[in-house]
Protein backbone atom coordinates (compact mmCIF):
# COMPACT_ATOMS: atom_id res chain seq x y z
CA UNK A 1 0.00 0.00 0.00
CA UNK A 2 2.79 2.42 1.00
CA UNK A 3 6.26 2.58 -0.33
CA UNK A 4 9.14 1.38 1.83
CA UNK A 5 10.15 5.00 2.21
CA UNK A 6 6.79 6.08 3.59
CA UNK A 7 6.71 3.13 5.95
CA UNK A 8 10.18 4.01 7.19
CA UNK A 9 9.06 7.58 7.74
CA UNK A 10 6.01 6.44 9.68
CA UNK A 11 8.23 4.20 11.81
CA UNK A 12 10.57 7.07 12.58
CA UNK A 13 7.61 9.31 13.30
CA UNK A 14 6.21 6.74 15.69
CA UNK A 15 9.51 6.46 17.55
CA UNK A 16 9.89 10.24 17.66
CA UNK A 17 6.41 10.67 19.05
CA UNK A 18 7.05 8.07 21.74
CA UNK A 19 10.41 9.65 22.53
CA UNK A 20 9.03 13.19 22.79
CA UNK A 21 6.08 12.10 24.86
CA UNK A 22 7.89 10.02 27.44
CA UNK A 23 10.95 12.24 27.81
CA UNK A 24 8.71 15.31 28.15
CA UNK A 25 6.51 13.47 30.64
CA UNK A 26 9.55 12.53 32.71
CA UNK A 27 10.82 16.11 32.86
CA UNK A 28 7.33 17.48 33.40
CA UNK A 29 6.89 15.15 36.38
CA UNK A 30 10.19 16.34 37.80
CA UNK A 31 8.61 19.80 37.96
CA UNK A 32 4.91 18.96 38.31
CA UNK A 33 5.15 16.38 41.08
CA UNK A 34 6.90 18.63 43.64
CA UNK A 35 4.70 21.50 42.51
CA UNK A 36 1.52 19.49 43.07
CA UNK A 37 2.73 18.29 46.47
CA UNK A 38 3.58 21.87 47.42
CA UNK A 39 0.04 22.89 46.50
CA UNK A 40 -1.37 20.22 48.83
CA UNK A 41 1.03 20.87 51.69
CA UNK A 42 0.62 24.66 51.65
CA UNK A 43 -3.16 24.55 51.23
CA UNK A 44 -5.12 26.15 54.07
CA UNK A 45 -6.10 22.67 55.25
CA UNK A 46 -2.66 21.26 54.47
CA UNK A 47 0.02 20.14 56.88
CA UNK A 48 2.02 23.38 56.44
CA UNK A 49 -0.45 26.09 55.39
CA UNK A 50 1.23 28.97 53.54
CA UNK A 51 -1.48 30.90 51.80
CA UNK A 52 0.78 33.36 49.95
CA UNK A 53 2.87 30.60 48.35
CA UNK A 54 -0.22 28.56 47.56
CA UNK A 55 -1.86 31.59 46.01
CA UNK A 56 1.11 32.52 43.83
CA UNK A 57 1.62 28.96 42.60
CA UNK A 58 -2.08 28.63 41.86
CA UNK A 59 -2.13 31.76 39.73
CA UNK A 60 1.04 30.86 37.81
CA UNK A 61 -0.29 27.38 37.08
CA UNK A 62 -3.63 28.72 35.95
CA UNK A 63 -2.00 31.23 33.61
CA UNK A 64 0.24 28.59 32.02
CA UNK A 65 -2.70 26.26 31.66
CA UNK A 66 -4.91 28.82 30.00
CA UNK A 67 -2.43 29.69 27.23
CA UNK A 68 -3.28 27.58 24.13
CA UNK A 69 -0.50 25.10 23.53
CA UNK A 70 0.48 26.29 20.06
CA UNK A 71 0.75 29.90 21.23
CA UNK A 72 2.87 28.73 24.15
CA UNK A 73 5.12 26.68 21.86
CA UNK A 74 5.72 29.73 19.65
CA UNK A 75 6.21 32.06 22.62
CA UNK A 76 8.90 29.89 24.19
CA UNK A 77 10.85 29.43 20.96
CA UNK A 78 13.72 31.70 22.08
CA UNK A 79 14.05 29.57 25.19
CA UNK A 80 13.84 26.40 23.11
CA UNK A 81 16.60 27.65 20.85
CA UNK A 82 18.87 28.55 23.75
CA UNK A 83 18.34 25.18 25.44
CA UNK A 84 18.30 22.85 22.43
CA UNK A 85 20.10 24.92 19.82
CA UNK A 86 17.15 24.62 17.42
CA UNK A 87 13.39 25.03 17.36
CA UNK A 88 12.86 22.20 14.90
CA UNK A 89 12.48 18.48 15.37
CA UNK A 90 11.48 16.12 18.11
CA UNK A 91 14.13 17.14 20.65
CA UNK A 92 13.24 20.81 20.41
CA UNK A 93 9.59 20.00 21.00
CA UNK A 94 10.42 18.71 24.45
CA UNK A 95 10.86 22.23 25.85
CA UNK A 96 7.35 23.57 25.14
CA UNK A 97 5.86 20.17 26.01
CA UNK A 98 7.45 20.25 29.46
CA UNK A 99 6.40 23.84 30.09
CA UNK A 100 2.84 23.16 29.00
CA UNK A 101 2.36 19.87 30.80
CA UNK A 102 4.12 20.52 34.13
CA UNK A 103 1.31 22.76 35.45
CA UNK A 104 -1.26 20.26 34.23
CA UNK A 105 0.60 17.47 36.00
CA UNK A 106 0.79 19.61 39.16
CA UNK A 107 -3.02 19.78 39.18
CA UNK A 108 -3.32 16.03 38.54
CA UNK A 109 -0.95 15.31 41.42
CA UNK A 110 -2.74 17.79 43.64
CA UNK A 111 -6.13 16.19 43.11
CA UNK A 112 -4.74 12.65 43.54
CA UNK A 113 -2.94 13.47 46.79
CA UNK A 114 -5.91 15.40 48.16
CA UNK A 115 -7.89 12.19 47.98
CA UNK A 116 -5.72 10.67 50.71
CA UNK A 117 -7.75 10.33 53.89
CA UNK A 118 -7.05 13.22 56.27
CA UNK A 119 -7.34 10.79 59.16
CA UNK A 120 -4.42 8.70 57.91
CA UNK A 121 -2.27 11.82 57.67
CA UNK A 122 -3.32 12.78 61.17
CA UNK A 123 -2.45 9.28 62.39
CA UNK A 124 1.03 9.60 60.92
CA UNK A 125 1.46 12.98 62.59
CA UNK A 126 0.32 11.49 65.89
CA UNK A 127 3.24 9.06 65.57
CA UNK A 128 5.66 11.94 65.26
CA UNK A 129 6.07 11.96 61.48
CA UNK A 130 7.61 15.17 60.14
CA UNK A 131 5.91 16.93 57.21
CA UNK A 132 8.53 15.45 54.87
CA UNK A 133 7.84 11.95 56.19
CA UNK A 134 4.12 12.51 55.79
CA UNK A 135 4.64 13.49 52.16
CA UNK A 136 7.05 10.70 51.26
CA UNK A 137 5.69 7.85 53.37
CA UNK A 138 1.98 8.58 53.54
CA UNK A 139 0.76 10.91 50.80
CA UNK A 140 2.67 9.47 47.86
CA UNK A 141 2.26 5.75 48.64
CA UNK A 142 -1.39 6.13 49.60
CA UNK A 143 -2.16 8.17 46.48
CA UNK A 144 -0.26 5.77 44.22
CA UNK A 145 -3.25 4.33 42.33
CA UNK A 146 -4.65 7.78 41.58
CA UNK A 147 -1.20 9.04 40.62
CA UNK A 148 -0.81 6.21 38.11
CA UNK A 149 -4.21 6.91 36.58
CA UNK A 150 -3.21 10.58 36.45
CA UNK A 151 0.05 9.77 34.72
CA UNK A 152 -1.81 7.88 31.98
CA UNK A 153 -3.93 10.98 31.44
CA UNK A 154 -0.83 13.18 31.47
CA UNK A 155 1.06 11.03 28.95
CA UNK A 156 -1.82 10.84 26.51
CA UNK A 157 -2.33 14.60 26.77
CA UNK A 158 1.36 15.19 26.08
CA UNK A 159 1.11 12.87 23.10
CA UNK A 160 -1.71 14.94 21.62
CA UNK A 161 0.21 18.16 22.32
CA UNK A 162 3.24 16.67 20.60
CA UNK A 163 1.13 15.98 17.52
CA UNK A 164 0.12 19.63 17.48
CA UNK A 165 3.73 20.76 17.30
CA UNK A 166 3.79 19.46 13.72
CA UNK A 167 2.44 22.89 12.81
CA UNK A 168 5.55 24.63 14.08
CA UNK A 169 8.17 22.18 12.91
CA UNK A 170 8.13 19.66 15.71
CA UNK A 171 8.80 16.06 14.81
CA UNK A 172 6.84 12.87 15.15
CA UNK A 173 3.57 11.57 13.80
CA UNK A 174 1.86 14.94 14.05
CA UNK A 175 4.46 16.46 11.79
CA UNK A 176 3.88 13.73 9.20
CA UNK A 177 0.12 14.11 9.42
CA UNK A 178 0.38 17.83 8.79
CA UNK A 179 3.05 17.77 6.10
CA UNK A 180 1.58 14.92 4.06
CA UNK A 181 -2.04 14.82 5.02
CA UNK A 182 -2.78 18.52 5.41
CA UNK A 183 -0.30 20.26 3.12
CA UNK A 184 -0.17 17.65 0.35
CA UNK A 185 -3.69 16.24 0.58
CA UNK A 186 -2.42 12.70 1.17
CA UNK A 187 -5.35 11.72 3.31
CA UNK A 188 -4.31 8.06 3.54
CA UNK A 189 -1.04 8.94 5.27
CA UNK A 190 -2.84 11.28 7.64
CA UNK A 191 -5.34 8.53 8.43
CA UNK A 192 -2.58 6.07 9.20
CA UNK A 193 -0.87 8.50 11.57
CA UNK A 194 -4.17 9.13 13.33
CA UNK A 195 -4.78 5.40 13.67
CA UNK A 196 -1.29 4.94 15.14
CA UNK A 197 -1.94 7.77 17.60
CA UNK A 198 -5.26 6.22 18.61
CA UNK A 199 -3.56 2.88 19.23
CA UNK A 200 -0.81 4.49 21.32
CA UNK A 201 -3.41 6.32 23.46
CA UNK A 202 -5.40 3.11 23.92
CA UNK A 203 -2.36 1.16 25.00
CA UNK A 204 -1.12 3.81 27.44
CA UNK A 205 -4.58 4.23 28.96
CA UNK A 206 -5.12 0.48 29.34
CA UNK A 207 -1.69 -0.14 30.82
CA UNK A 208 -2.16 2.79 33.20
CA UNK A 209 -5.52 1.56 34.45
CA UNK A 210 -4.21 -1.97 34.84
CA UNK A 211 -1.16 -0.84 36.80
CA UNK A 212 -3.35 1.31 39.04
CA UNK A 213 -5.69 -1.59 39.70
CA UNK A 214 -2.88 -4.01 40.51
CA UNK A 215 -1.25 -1.44 42.78
CA UNK A 216 -4.43 -0.58 44.66
CA UNK A 217 -4.83 -2.58 47.88
CA UNK A 218 -7.98 -0.86 49.08
CA UNK A 219 -10.27 -3.62 47.82
Amino acid at each position, binding site marked *: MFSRQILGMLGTGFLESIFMTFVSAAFAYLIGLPLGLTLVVTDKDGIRPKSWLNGILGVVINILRSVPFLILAITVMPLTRSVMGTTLGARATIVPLVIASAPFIARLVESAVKEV*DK*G*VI*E*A*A*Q*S*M*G*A*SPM*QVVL*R*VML*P*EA*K*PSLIVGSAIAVTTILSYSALTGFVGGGGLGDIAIRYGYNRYQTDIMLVTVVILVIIVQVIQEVGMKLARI*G*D*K*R*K
Partner: protein
Amino acid sequence: MDRLEPIIRIQKLTKTFAGAGGGLTVLDNIDLDIYNGDVFGIIGVSGAGKSTLVRCINFLERPTSGTISFDGKDLNRLPEKALYKVRQSMGMIFQQFNLLMQRTALDNVCFPLEIAGKSRKESRVRAEALLELVELPDKARAYPGQLSGGQRQRVAIARALATDPKVLLCDEATSALDPKTTRGVLALLKEINRKLGVTVVVITHEMTVVEEICNKVAVIDACKIAETGDVSEVFIKPKSLAARKLFYPDDVTTEHFINSRCCRIVFDGNSSFEPVVADMVLRFRKTVNIIFADTKNIGGKAFGQMVLQLPEDDTSAEKMMEYLTAKGLAAEEVRDYV
Protein backbone atom coordinates in the same frame (compact mmCIF):
# COMPACT_ATOMS: atom_id res chain seq x y z
CA MET B 1 7.25 6.49 87.68
CA ASP B 2 6.20 8.60 90.60
CA ARG B 3 2.51 8.13 91.17
CA LEU B 4 2.20 11.63 92.58
CA GLU B 5 3.40 13.34 89.44
CA PRO B 6 0.74 13.32 86.72
CA ILE B 7 1.97 12.02 83.36
CA ILE B 8 -0.36 14.43 81.60
CA ARG B 9 -1.15 17.75 83.22
CA ILE B 10 -3.49 20.14 81.50
CA GLN B 11 -3.67 23.62 82.93
CA LYS B 12 -6.00 26.42 81.93
CA LEU B 13 -6.29 25.02 78.44
CA THR B 14 -8.33 27.14 76.06
CA LYS B 15 -8.74 26.47 72.37
CA THR B 16 -10.42 28.87 70.02
CA PHE B 17 -10.77 28.27 66.32
CA ALA B 18 -10.48 31.38 64.22
CA GLY B 19 -13.53 31.99 62.10
CA ALA B 20 -16.19 34.39 61.13
CA GLY B 21 -17.54 36.46 64.00
CA GLY B 22 -14.48 36.39 66.23
CA GLY B 23 -13.88 32.67 66.42
CA LEU B 24 -15.33 29.65 68.12
CA THR B 25 -14.22 28.54 71.57
CA VAL B 26 -14.27 24.76 71.83
CA LEU B 27 -12.33 24.34 75.06
CA ASP B 28 -12.64 26.79 77.89
CA ASN B 29 -10.16 26.84 80.76
CA ILE B 30 -9.67 23.10 81.13
CA ASP B 31 -7.67 21.72 84.06
CA LEU B 32 -7.00 18.01 84.15
CA ASP B 33 -4.43 15.68 85.69
CA ILE B 34 -3.96 12.19 84.34
CA TYR B 35 -1.74 9.88 86.35
CA ASN B 36 0.47 7.05 85.27
CA GLY B 37 -1.43 3.80 85.04
CA ASP B 38 -4.86 5.40 84.86
CA VAL B 39 -7.52 4.44 82.40
CA PHE B 40 -8.94 7.90 82.13
CA GLY B 41 -12.29 8.45 80.47
CA ILE B 42 -13.26 11.79 78.99
CA ILE B 43 -16.96 11.65 78.30
CA GLY B 44 -19.30 14.16 76.78
CA VAL B 45 -21.94 14.55 74.14
CA SER B 46 -20.97 15.25 70.53
CA GLY B 47 -19.61 18.72 70.05
CA ALA B 48 -18.55 19.09 73.66
CA GLY B 49 -14.95 19.49 72.56
CA LYS B 50 -13.52 16.09 73.54
CA SER B 51 -11.85 15.36 70.22
CA THR B 52 -10.12 18.71 70.25
CA LEU B 53 -9.05 18.09 73.85
CA VAL B 54 -7.35 14.79 72.98
CA ARG B 55 -5.62 16.43 70.00
CA CYS B 56 -4.29 19.13 72.29
CA ILE B 57 -2.71 16.44 74.47
CA ASN B 58 -0.37 15.39 71.65
CA PHE B 59 -0.31 18.86 70.15
CA LEU B 60 -1.95 17.91 66.88
CA GLU B 61 -3.92 21.00 67.83
CA ARG B 62 -1.98 23.80 69.43
CA PRO B 63 -3.77 25.30 72.42
CA THR B 64 -4.76 28.94 72.12
CA SER B 65 -3.66 29.40 75.71
CA GLY B 66 -2.76 27.26 78.69
CA THR B 67 -0.19 24.52 79.10
CA ILE B 68 0.02 20.81 78.47
CA SER B 69 2.73 18.94 80.29
CA PHE B 70 3.65 15.41 79.33
CA ASP B 71 5.99 13.51 81.59
CA GLY B 72 7.08 16.80 83.16
CA LYS B 73 7.79 18.51 79.83
CA ASP B 74 5.86 21.61 78.84
CA LEU B 75 4.94 20.85 75.22
CA ASN B 76 4.58 24.53 74.40
CA ARG B 77 8.27 25.07 74.97
CA LEU B 78 9.44 22.16 72.87
CA PRO B 79 10.91 22.75 69.42
CA GLU B 80 9.23 20.98 66.52
CA LYS B 81 11.72 18.07 66.40
CA ALA B 82 11.41 17.36 70.11
CA LEU B 83 7.65 17.35 69.71
CA TYR B 84 7.92 14.55 67.13
CA LYS B 85 9.90 12.54 69.68
CA VAL B 86 7.30 13.18 72.37
CA ARG B 87 4.53 12.04 70.04
CA GLN B 88 6.37 8.76 69.63
CA SER B 89 5.75 8.11 73.31
CA MET B 90 2.03 8.82 72.89
CA GLY B 91 0.16 6.32 70.75
CA MET B 92 -3.19 7.24 69.31
CA ILE B 93 -6.10 5.29 67.88
CA PHE B 94 -9.10 6.66 66.04
CA GLN B 95 -12.76 6.02 65.38
CA GLN B 96 -12.07 5.37 61.69
CA PHE B 97 -8.87 3.37 62.44
CA ASN B 98 -6.86 5.44 59.95
CA LEU B 99 -4.70 2.61 58.73
CA LEU B 100 -2.54 3.01 55.66
CA MET B 101 -4.66 1.29 53.05
CA GLN B 102 -1.76 0.48 50.72
CA ARG B 103 0.24 -1.33 53.40
CA THR B 104 -0.26 -4.75 54.93
CA ALA B 105 -1.21 -5.08 58.59
CA LEU B 106 2.41 -5.90 59.39
CA ASP B 107 3.74 -2.91 57.47
CA ASN B 108 1.20 -0.68 59.17
CA VAL B 109 2.59 -1.72 62.53
CA CYS B 110 6.10 -1.19 61.18
CA PHE B 111 5.20 2.34 60.07
CA PRO B 112 5.78 4.26 63.34
CA LEU B 113 9.05 2.36 63.79
CA GLU B 114 10.22 3.48 60.34
CA ILE B 115 9.25 7.02 61.28
CA ALA B 116 11.32 6.64 64.44
CA GLY B 117 14.27 5.51 62.31
CA LYS B 118 14.37 1.85 63.34
CA SER B 119 15.82 -0.70 60.96
CA ARG B 120 13.53 -2.75 58.75
CA LYS B 121 14.48 -6.02 60.43
CA GLU B 122 14.04 -4.72 63.96
CA SER B 123 10.68 -3.21 63.02
CA ARG B 124 9.38 -6.47 61.58
CA VAL B 125 10.30 -8.49 64.66
CA ARG B 126 8.59 -5.97 66.92
CA ALA B 127 5.55 -5.71 64.65
CA GLU B 128 5.11 -9.47 64.59
CA ALA B 129 5.19 -9.58 68.39
CA LEU B 130 2.57 -6.82 68.56
CA LEU B 131 0.25 -8.56 66.10
CA GLU B 132 0.59 -11.55 68.40
CA LEU B 133 -0.45 -9.37 71.34
CA VAL B 134 -3.59 -8.17 69.56
CA GLU B 135 -4.30 -11.75 68.49
CA LEU B 136 -3.93 -11.20 64.76
CA PRO B 137 -0.67 -12.97 63.89
CA ASP B 138 -2.30 -14.72 60.93
CA LYS B 139 -3.39 -11.41 59.39
CA ALA B 140 0.12 -9.97 59.05
CA ARG B 141 0.02 -10.10 55.23
CA ALA B 142 -3.59 -8.91 54.89
CA TYR B 143 -4.36 -5.40 53.73
CA PRO B 144 -6.72 -3.27 55.85
CA GLY B 145 -9.30 -3.53 53.08
CA GLN B 146 -9.51 -7.26 53.77
CA LEU B 147 -10.03 -6.90 57.52
CA SER B 148 -13.18 -6.32 59.57
CA GLY B 149 -13.67 -3.18 61.67
CA GLY B 150 -12.64 -4.90 64.87
CA GLN B 151 -9.55 -6.39 63.25
CA ARG B 152 -8.60 -3.01 61.81
CA GLN B 153 -8.83 -1.42 65.22
CA ARG B 154 -6.64 -4.18 66.65
CA VAL B 155 -4.03 -3.49 63.99
CA ALA B 156 -4.32 0.21 64.83
CA ILE B 157 -3.76 -0.59 68.50
CA ALA B 158 -0.71 -2.69 67.66
CA ARG B 159 0.57 0.18 65.53
CA ALA B 160 -0.04 2.71 68.31
CA LEU B 161 1.93 0.53 70.72
CA ALA B 162 4.88 -0.05 68.38
CA THR B 163 7.04 2.73 69.75
CA ASP B 164 6.46 1.66 73.36
CA PRO B 165 4.35 4.67 74.29
CA LYS B 166 3.63 5.67 77.86
CA VAL B 167 0.19 6.87 76.93
CA LEU B 168 -2.42 5.56 74.54
CA LEU B 169 -4.96 8.14 73.37
CA CYS B 170 -8.22 6.66 72.12
CA ASP B 171 -10.50 8.97 70.18
CA GLU B 172 -13.93 7.31 70.03
CA ALA B 173 -12.06 4.10 69.32
CA THR B 174 -15.10 1.85 69.56
CA SER B 175 -17.79 4.15 68.18
CA ALA B 176 -17.67 2.59 64.72
CA LEU B 177 -17.83 -0.96 66.05
CA ASP B 178 -20.73 -3.22 66.96
CA PRO B 179 -21.32 -4.00 70.68
CA LYS B 180 -19.62 -7.38 70.64
CA THR B 181 -16.50 -6.12 68.85
CA THR B 182 -16.50 -3.11 71.17
CA ARG B 183 -16.26 -5.38 74.21
CA GLY B 184 -13.34 -7.23 72.66
CA VAL B 185 -11.45 -4.04 71.87
CA LEU B 186 -12.16 -2.60 75.33
CA ALA B 187 -10.93 -5.81 76.96
CA LEU B 188 -7.75 -5.51 74.90
CA LEU B 189 -7.24 -1.90 76.01
CA LYS B 190 -7.74 -2.94 79.62
CA GLU B 191 -5.23 -5.73 79.22
CA ILE B 192 -2.69 -3.37 77.66
CA ASN B 193 -3.13 -1.03 80.59
CA ARG B 194 -2.69 -3.84 83.10
CA LYS B 195 0.08 -5.81 81.44
CA LEU B 196 2.16 -3.06 79.85
CA GLY B 197 1.33 -0.32 82.33
CA VAL B 198 0.33 2.03 79.53
CA THR B 199 -1.80 4.94 80.65
CA VAL B 200 -4.95 4.99 78.56
CA VAL B 201 -6.99 8.10 77.78
CA VAL B 202 -10.39 7.24 76.40
CA ILE B 203 -12.51 9.81 74.62
CA THR B 204 -16.08 8.66 74.27
CA HIS B 205 -19.72 9.64 74.25
CA GLU B 206 -20.77 6.23 75.51
CA MET B 207 -21.25 5.65 79.22
CA THR B 208 -20.75 1.91 78.78
CA VAL B 209 -17.18 2.45 77.61
CA VAL B 210 -16.35 4.36 80.78
CA GLU B 211 -18.07 1.77 82.95
CA GLU B 212 -16.23 -1.05 81.27
CA ILE B 213 -12.63 0.07 81.51
CA CYS B 214 -12.06 3.44 83.18
CA ASN B 215 -11.04 4.12 86.75
CA LYS B 216 -11.12 7.90 86.40
CA VAL B 217 -13.53 10.02 84.46
CA ALA B 218 -13.93 13.62 83.45
CA VAL B 219 -17.28 14.84 82.21
CA ILE B 220 -16.92 17.50 79.59
CA ASP B 221 -19.88 19.69 78.79
CA ALA B 222 -20.15 22.88 76.79
CA CYS B 223 -16.36 23.27 76.44
CA LYS B 224 -15.71 22.93 80.17
CA ILE B 225 -14.94 20.11 82.58
CA ALA B 226 -18.21 19.69 84.45
CA GLU B 227 -16.93 17.11 86.88
CA THR B 228 -13.99 14.81 87.41
CA GLY B 229 -13.03 12.01 89.79
CA ASP B 230 -13.06 8.26 90.33
CA VAL B 231 -15.56 6.52 88.11
CA SER B 232 -17.35 4.91 91.06
CA GLU B 233 -17.65 8.25 92.85
CA VAL B 234 -18.81 10.29 89.91
CA PHE B 235 -21.12 7.52 88.91
CA ILE B 236 -22.76 7.13 92.32
CA LYS B 237 -23.08 10.78 93.17
CA PRO B 238 -22.92 12.85 90.04
CA LYS B 239 -22.73 16.42 91.21
CA SER B 240 -23.16 18.20 87.93
CA LEU B 241 -26.28 18.27 85.83
CA ALA B 242 -24.19 17.27 82.79
CA ALA B 243 -23.01 14.10 84.53
CA ARG B 244 -26.49 13.24 85.75
CA LYS B 245 -27.86 13.62 82.26
CA LEU B 246 -25.13 11.40 80.84
CA PHE B 247 -25.32 8.66 83.43
CA TYR B 248 -29.05 8.67 84.05
CA PRO B 249 -30.55 9.98 80.85
CA ASP B 250 -34.09 8.99 81.92
CA ASP B 251 -33.68 10.68 85.25
CA VAL B 252 -34.98 14.06 84.26
CA THR B 253 -38.35 12.72 83.20
CA THR B 254 -39.15 11.44 86.67
CA GLU B 255 -39.11 14.85 88.30
CA HIS B 256 -42.80 15.47 88.11
CA PHE B 257 -43.64 12.25 89.95
CA ILE B 258 -42.37 13.59 93.18
CA ASN B 259 -45.18 14.93 95.24
CA SER B 260 -44.46 13.38 98.57
CA ARG B 261 -41.44 12.16 100.45
CA CYS B 262 -38.98 10.38 98.30
CA CYS B 263 -35.60 8.94 99.02
CA ARG B 264 -32.76 8.03 96.81
CA ILE B 265 -30.78 4.91 97.58
CA VAL B 266 -27.37 4.61 96.09
CA PHE B 267 -25.81 1.22 95.49
CA ASP B 268 -22.09 1.43 95.82
CA GLY B 269 -21.25 -2.19 95.23
CA ASN B 270 -21.63 -3.50 98.79
CA SER B 271 -25.10 -4.87 99.16
CA SER B 272 -26.23 -5.74 95.71
CA PHE B 273 -27.31 -9.27 96.41
CA GLU B 274 -29.47 -8.50 99.41
CA PRO B 275 -33.13 -7.84 98.68
CA VAL B 276 -33.01 -4.68 100.77
CA VAL B 277 -36.15 -3.01 99.56
CA ALA B 278 -38.26 -6.14 99.79
CA ASP B 279 -36.97 -6.83 103.30
CA MET B 280 -37.81 -3.30 104.32
CA VAL B 281 -41.35 -3.51 103.05
CA LEU B 282 -41.92 -6.81 104.85
CA ARG B 283 -40.48 -5.44 108.04
CA PHE B 284 -42.44 -2.18 108.22
CA ARG B 285 -45.54 -3.51 106.49
CA LYS B 286 -45.83 -0.32 104.51
CA THR B 287 -45.55 -0.15 100.75
CA VAL B 288 -43.06 1.94 98.87
CA ASN B 289 -43.31 2.95 95.29
CA ILE B 290 -40.24 2.51 93.06
CA ILE B 291 -40.22 5.67 90.99
CA PHE B 292 -36.92 5.23 89.33
CA ALA B 293 -34.28 2.55 89.29
CA ASP B 294 -31.09 2.27 87.35
CA THR B 295 -28.44 -0.15 88.44
CA LYS B 296 -25.48 -1.31 86.50
CA ASN B 297 -22.89 -3.97 86.85
CA ILE B 298 -19.44 -2.45 86.98
CA GLY B 299 -16.52 -4.75 87.50
CA GLY B 300 -18.72 -7.37 89.16
CA LYS B 301 -20.32 -4.98 91.64
CA ALA B 302 -23.68 -3.31 91.47
CA PHE B 303 -23.69 0.43 91.14
CA GLY B 304 -26.57 2.71 90.59
CA GLN B 305 -29.49 4.32 92.24
CA MET B 306 -33.11 3.83 93.02
CA VAL B 307 -35.69 6.41 93.99
CA LEU B 308 -38.46 5.28 96.34
CA GLN B 309 -41.64 7.05 97.24
CA LEU B 310 -41.91 6.60 101.02
CA PRO B 311 -45.13 6.14 103.02
CA GLU B 312 -47.08 9.32 103.77
CA ASP B 313 -46.72 9.15 107.54
CA ASP B 314 -43.50 10.67 108.78
CA THR B 315 -42.61 8.08 111.40
CA SER B 316 -42.54 5.21 108.97
CA ALA B 317 -40.60 7.27 106.48
CA GLU B 318 -38.02 8.22 109.09
CA LYS B 319 -37.68 4.62 110.20
CA MET B 320 -37.23 3.41 106.68
CA MET B 321 -34.49 5.93 106.09
CA GLU B 322 -32.76 4.76 109.26
CA TYR B 323 -33.14 1.14 108.20
CA LEU B 324 -31.55 1.80 104.82
CA THR B 325 -28.66 3.70 106.35
CA ALA B 326 -28.15 0.88 108.85
CA LYS B 327 -27.91 -1.51 105.92
CA GLY B 328 -24.91 0.43 104.72
CA LEU B 329 -26.62 2.12 101.82
CA ALA B 330 -26.27 5.78 101.06
CA ALA B 331 -29.83 7.02 101.36
CA GLU B 332 -30.89 10.60 101.12
CA GLU B 333 -34.19 12.34 100.99
CA VAL B 334 -34.90 14.13 97.76
CA ARG B 335 -37.45 16.81 97.17
CA ASP B 336 -36.51 19.00 94.27
CA TYR B 337 -34.82 16.69 91.80
CA VAL B 338 -34.13 13.03 91.52
